């Protein structure tokens, strides 16, 4: 009886899906970052490379399929996390403590994944509206490499101080989300081992600092060079 709905409805299943989509997004971030780092090169190198990269990412069939998985993952991760899990978790304690000291038993990020995630979702919407939507649904002027000038759009955007600031803050938020989320996803899937778990934890901490930091450097760099 319990077995039938185990992979769909159980509390653990919801967590498995959170974990799997989360891990997928973590992988995606690396490829995303790899492309973005092009932007740190000199404009004459960066412009054609970045435009080609954009072109490749939006037309190559395999990437296209993966991109749908990505959209799904983002949506699922958000819906499952914010609408289902966070709501259920709030309902599990209808009356709050009058006096509570959770800081004595857990880290702040781990207790605020829903809030952090919501902030990241808002960021993703903003981010996609500005780049993905414009690229897909409006005519971008042609730029280096005889391709639509994504590079120009990016550089122009980050020359706005406030826009860069949003990106930097969002990456800090992402860092906190990953700080807990990375190792948590392994724990949820039961990928736990005396020997390897400490390694996973170190990788997780390094990842959650380095990746958002590199992402954040780009708008700072472009802003300062404007």
């Amino acid at each position, binding site marked *: 009886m319990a077995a039938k709905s185990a*992979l769909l409805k159980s509390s653990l299943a919801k967590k498995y899906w959170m974990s799997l989509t989360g891990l997928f997004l973590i992988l995606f971030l690396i490829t995303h970052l790899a492309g973005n780092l092009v932007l740190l090169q000199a404009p004459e190198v960066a412009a054609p490379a970045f435009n080609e990269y954009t072109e490749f990412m939006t037309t190559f069939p395999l990437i296209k399929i993966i991109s749908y998985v990505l959209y799904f993952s983002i949506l699922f991760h958000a819906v499952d996390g914010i609408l289902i899990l966070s709501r259920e978790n709030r309902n599990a304690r209808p009356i709050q403590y009058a006096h509570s000291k959770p800081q004595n038993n857990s880290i702040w990020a781990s207790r605020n994944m829903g809030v952090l995630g919501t902030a990241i979702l808002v960021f993703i919407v903003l981010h996609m509206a500005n780049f993905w939507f414009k690229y897909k649904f409006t005519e971008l002027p042609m730029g280096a490499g005889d391709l639509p000038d994504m590079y120009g759009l990016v550089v122009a955007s980050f020359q706005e101080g406030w826009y860069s600031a949003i990106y930097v803050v969002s990456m800090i938020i992402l860092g906190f989300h990953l700080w807990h989320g990375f190792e*948590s996803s392994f724990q949820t899937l039961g990928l736990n081992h005396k020997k390897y778990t400490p390694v996973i934890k170190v990788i997780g901490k390094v990842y959650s600092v380095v990746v958002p930091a590199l992402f954040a450097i780009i708008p700072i760099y472009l802003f300062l060079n404007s």
Partner: protein
Amino acid sequence: MKLTLKIWRQKNATAQGKMETYQVSDISEHMSFLEMMDVLNEQLIAEGKEPVAFDHDCREGICGSCSMYINGQPHGPRQATTTCQLHMREFNDGDTIYIEPWRAKAFPVMKDLVVDRSAFDRIIQSGGYVSVNTSGNTLDANAIPIPKEDADEAFNAATCIGCGACVAACKNASAMLFVSAKVSQLSLLPQGQVERKERVLNMVDQMDKEGFGNCTNTGACSVECPKEISLENIARMNRDYLAASVTK
């Protein structure tokens, strides 16, 4: 020492409750926390008032009855300690101490600091056992050697006292540490293998029905657990459940 106590008072399961303030004096640092509560109750009785109801029994940290959320933490500030083994030397003269019941939808308050933890019993009833009848002809106890490491780990999981501090500490009121401790104990032993998949599926199913929250791996449960039950048990249960739900 003199203390100000802010305690949750609630007449019964349906009544509205609220925090009340009490003063106690002449508290010795050698008293246990519950002995301090005894002093308060004697004082209330002497004033013709209703004493504060709280669960307690063995007062040596093993029965799992006592359950107070003290100054923002289950079982108070000292780690690996139940309320009954917490001593007043952890506090200072003039302190204000907040005392609340476990808070969880699955643990409704019955009166004052007493909560209903029968959800834990129902989870065990759904599968926390090896289905063997009493028999005078069971296999000899030494027929199956068990690696000491596995036996010790099973024992560590089995030391759970079922107090519910894990649920009380968890921001989601999740019961994963409790459930996984029992699942782990039996899945680490050869005797538990026959029903391993069925057990984890049924116990998680019951846990979900009881209205506990989901695990977000904050680790608060294990930090506050008076028996220091490890988070590895949760990982093990996650693994077992995944395997069972894919193959069963």
